[in-house]
């Protein structure tokens, strides 16, 4: 039993690692392709590709996935040849290698899903072998002035890398690090040196040299680091704990090619990437679990505080206890911060797969697309990253499929044939990320969209967004291969706005292009929230969404007309009918009958009223000269209507909306748990939290709710209509 479990864990770890190598490899291969287009060679990405495939091969052999071993081996061979050929690959071989990566990915996925792993396609293996045989002839390799011992270990790819660096204005240096017990005791070893030097310079190669043991080099070993840098010599020397540096002379491109070099072993220990040391990969589920445990701790913390307060009320001296509680508070906060940090991934990592997506789309549509990515330095919660990625893919599809014109049309319009799609990202605030996908295509045709939707042409970008995010709307007559039917913009909106409590905006100009902007929270889990009562039910809502808490003077509420029914209509049709169970005689039983369950929807539908049917008609209040619609949340939710004395004012697309509540209780940080189950996933409710009573309290998203209430059937909100 435990044995089987271990194997599963091992395979899970294997899959994670393979996936990482695959995505890095894809990025590297695309970099090679880009370099090829620019007429440059790309020794570094090719070497990294080679290493990645070598690692995949080794891991797969350990797990016993022969098809992947075969594929990785074939690709590794091609890449070794390419590396020896100073980092060049032909366009056709890039295509074959990409197919190879996809093939490996498919097999890894099959393994993950417990399906049979298909053998490698013989035709693909043959293509790889053919590439190896037809390996590009070696281009001239630059001459490097260095010790023969070092030269012997320097491959042509590395020589080209050095020459390119020098040509690019950096200096090629050799700096030596001599390990010693004293230095090790100070925490200075080859790994830390690599890290330090790596910050100042690009490390091309680290060559271990054996030297006679001496006082200066008691270990009899010296590491020669060959680097490219623009940093001052002294800084590089200091980083390597060396006395000085030596310049390497680089004479570019003198044929003939170097003859038979010693084959480098790619995974010799000193050649490992140092950044990965000390990194543990953890499944998000485990971090979720830790967070769950922590929220349990937060709950007992509340109870503790309450108990202390009771003691105090009874006249007990609780000063010591209070001090401990404060300390406890701080520790909890720190612990929470630490777990949250562990859940963060960089936006760069999130966008790693974007180049492949765009490349595939460009090929499928025959359009030329240049992708520009500015990922910035932001990090976001893994759970948010996973949710937002499909939205990014949708936006990229739309950009390439619908927005960017075919080359001929672009030429006619006087635009460069190559379209540009730009993905950029920056941290707007400490808790919000702005992610935009922009293209220089044809822009959105408002008139066409309006015609399709059967609505008047939208005047503003916000109104246009409302139209294009209608489910099922498409501006293309034919469903295209890549986009399927419809634009899928409703999905993007749903992800950004409803799932992530974020915002979606568009700006478009005819002929010049379109930019979609997503504003999403970096983390979902902990928010500063107001707690309030509606009737007798307690709710919380993020402080960030609330513009103001206002007092309401009941005498100054204006009630609008209430057309239609006075009771709440339902926006979702009920699936079943209300019906009781029926009595049927039970076969051969003397008990008189069995009550049958009947598919029931006793009340059916949802309680959210449709626009204009808010209970008791629309109420309006005036705030600083602005007319604000007011809805009593207690009445809306049937938790008990009350004369609303307080209201939480939110603003959506610039339009204010007030929610009347019975009483505002306070403000505190809450741990929000998303509600995942379809039974309880409803617009306006973003999750649940525990305020310390052991019962779930709903976290409301009032901004979304206001949108639901005012986005009427007639386009602009009916409630707003009353105001004007």
């Amino acid at each position: 039993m435990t044995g089987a479990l271990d194997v599963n864990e091992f395979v899970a770890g294997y899959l994670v690692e393979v996936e990482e190598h695959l995505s890095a490899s894809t990025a590297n291969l695309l970099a090679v392709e880009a370099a090829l287009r620019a007429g440059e060679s790309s020794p570094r990405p090719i070497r990294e590709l080679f290493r990645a495939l070598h690692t995949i091969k080794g891991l797969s052999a350990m797990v016993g996935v022969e098809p992947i071993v075969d594929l990785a081996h074939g690709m590794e061979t091609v890449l070794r040849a390419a590396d020896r050929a100073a980092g060049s690959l032909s366009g056709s071989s890039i295509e074959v290698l990409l197919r190879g990566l996809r093939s490996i990915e498919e097999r890894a996925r099959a393994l993950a899903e417990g399906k049979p792993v298909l053998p490698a396609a013989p035709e693909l293996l043959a293509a790889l072998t053919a590439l190896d045989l037809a390996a590009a002839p070696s281009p001239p390799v630059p001459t490097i002035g260095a010790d023969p011992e070092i030269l012997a270990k320097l491959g042509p790819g590395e020589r080209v890398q050095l020459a390119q660096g020098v040509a690019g204005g950096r200096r090629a240096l050799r700096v030596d690090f001599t390990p010693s017990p004293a230095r090790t005791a100070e925490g200075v070893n080859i790994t830390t040196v690599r890290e330090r030097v790596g910050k100042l310079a690009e490390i091309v190669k680290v060559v271990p040299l054996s030297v006679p043991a001496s006082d200066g080099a008691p270990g009899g070993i010296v590491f020669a680091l060959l680097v490219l840098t623009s940093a001052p010599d002294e800084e590089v020397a200091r980083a390597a704990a060396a006395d000085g540096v030596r310049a390497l002379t680089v004479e570019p491109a003198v044929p003939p090619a170097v003859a038979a070099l010693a084959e480098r072993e790619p995974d010799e220990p000193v050649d490992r990437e140092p950044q990965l040391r000390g990194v543990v990969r953890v499944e998000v589920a485990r971090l979720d679990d830790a967070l769950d445990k922590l929220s349990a701790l937060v709950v007992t913390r509340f109870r503790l505080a309450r108990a202390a307060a009771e003691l105090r009320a009874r006249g007990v001296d609780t000063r010591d206890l209070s001090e401990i509680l404060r300390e406890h508070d701080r520790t909890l906060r720190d612990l929470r911060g630490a777990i949250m940090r562990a859940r963060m991934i960089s936006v760069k990592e999130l966008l790693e797969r974007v180049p492949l997506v765009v490349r595939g789309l460009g090929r499928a549509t025959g359009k030329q697309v240049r992708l520009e990515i500015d990922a910035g330095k932001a990090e976001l919660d893994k759970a948010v990253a996973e949710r937002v990625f499909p939205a990014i893919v949708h936006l990229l599809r739309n950009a390439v499929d619908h927005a960017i014109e075919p080359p001929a049309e672009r030429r006619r319009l006087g635009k460069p044939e190559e379209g540009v799609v730009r993905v950029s990202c920056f941290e707007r605030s400490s808790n919000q990320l702005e992610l935009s996908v922009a293209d220089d295509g044809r822009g959105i045709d408002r008139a066409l969209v309006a015609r399709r939707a059967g609505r008047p042409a939208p005047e503003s970008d916000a109104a246009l967004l409302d139209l294009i995010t209608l489910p099922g709307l498409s501006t293309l007559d034919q469903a295209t291969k890549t986009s399927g039917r419809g634009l899928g913009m409703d999905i993007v909106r749903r992800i950004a706005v409803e799932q992530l409590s974020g915002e979606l905006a568009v700006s478009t100009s005819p002929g010049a292009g379109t930019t979609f902007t997503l504003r999403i929270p970096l983390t979902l889990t902990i928010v500063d929230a107001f707690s309030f009562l509606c009737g007798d039910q307690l709710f919380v809502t993020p402080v960030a969404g609330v513009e103001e808490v206002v007092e309401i003077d009941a005498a100054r509420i204006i009630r609008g007309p209430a057309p239609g029914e006075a009771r709440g209509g339902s926006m979702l049709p009920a699936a079943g009918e209300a019906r009781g169970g029926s009595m049927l005689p039970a076969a051969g039983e003397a008990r008189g009958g069995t009550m049958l369950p009947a598919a029931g929807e006793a009340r059916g539908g949802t309680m959210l009223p449709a626009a204009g049917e808010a209970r008791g008609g629309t109420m309006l209040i005036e705030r600083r000269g602005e007319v604000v619609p007011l809805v009593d949340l207690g009445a809306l939710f049937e938790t008990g209507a009350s004369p609303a004395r307080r209201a939480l004012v939110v603003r959506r697309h610039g339009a204010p909306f007030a929610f009347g509540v019975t009483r505002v209780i306070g403000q505190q940080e809450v741990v929000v748990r998303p509600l995942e189950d379809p039974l309880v996933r409803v617009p306006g409710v973003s999750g649940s939290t525990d305020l310390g009573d052991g019962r779930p309290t709903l976290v409301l998203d009032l901004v979304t709710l206001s949108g639901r209430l005012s986005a009427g059937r007639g386009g602009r909100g009916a409630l707003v209509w009353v105001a004007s």
Partner: protein
Amino acid sequence: MSELHVVLKVADTEYVISAVDVLHMESFAGATRVPGTRSYVGGLVQIRGRVVPVVDLRVRFGLPSAEPTLDSRVIVVQHGGRTVGLLVDSAREVVNIAEGELRPPPEVMAEESAGFVRAVAKIGGRLVMLVDVGRIIGEEQDHGS
């Protein structure tokens, strides 16, 4: 082959569900209502640190809901990757039902009950209905939009 089943009562009628699906059973003292959900969603409860949606089987079976009593139980089931609580009037018994004892429900019953009843079985002179947990928690529908 016989399998353990949990016997539960909804309005004096006895049903069974396979014990394999059941995570645990808890007493019930009310749930947090979620506005906008279907009528048979009783709300959310927190059980062992986990927030679980509850399906009120009375309402699901087309009956009026009832005030919770000391006998009321939430049976937490795990089905298709989801964890959902079933609110029942009582659940106190676990029985062994041999595979051969389970019979398909009469056709008229199958239709009437929208597929909620998967089989009927006689245990010691009592007739019980095996309910389809997947249907009850609505595996085919996803109205979250």
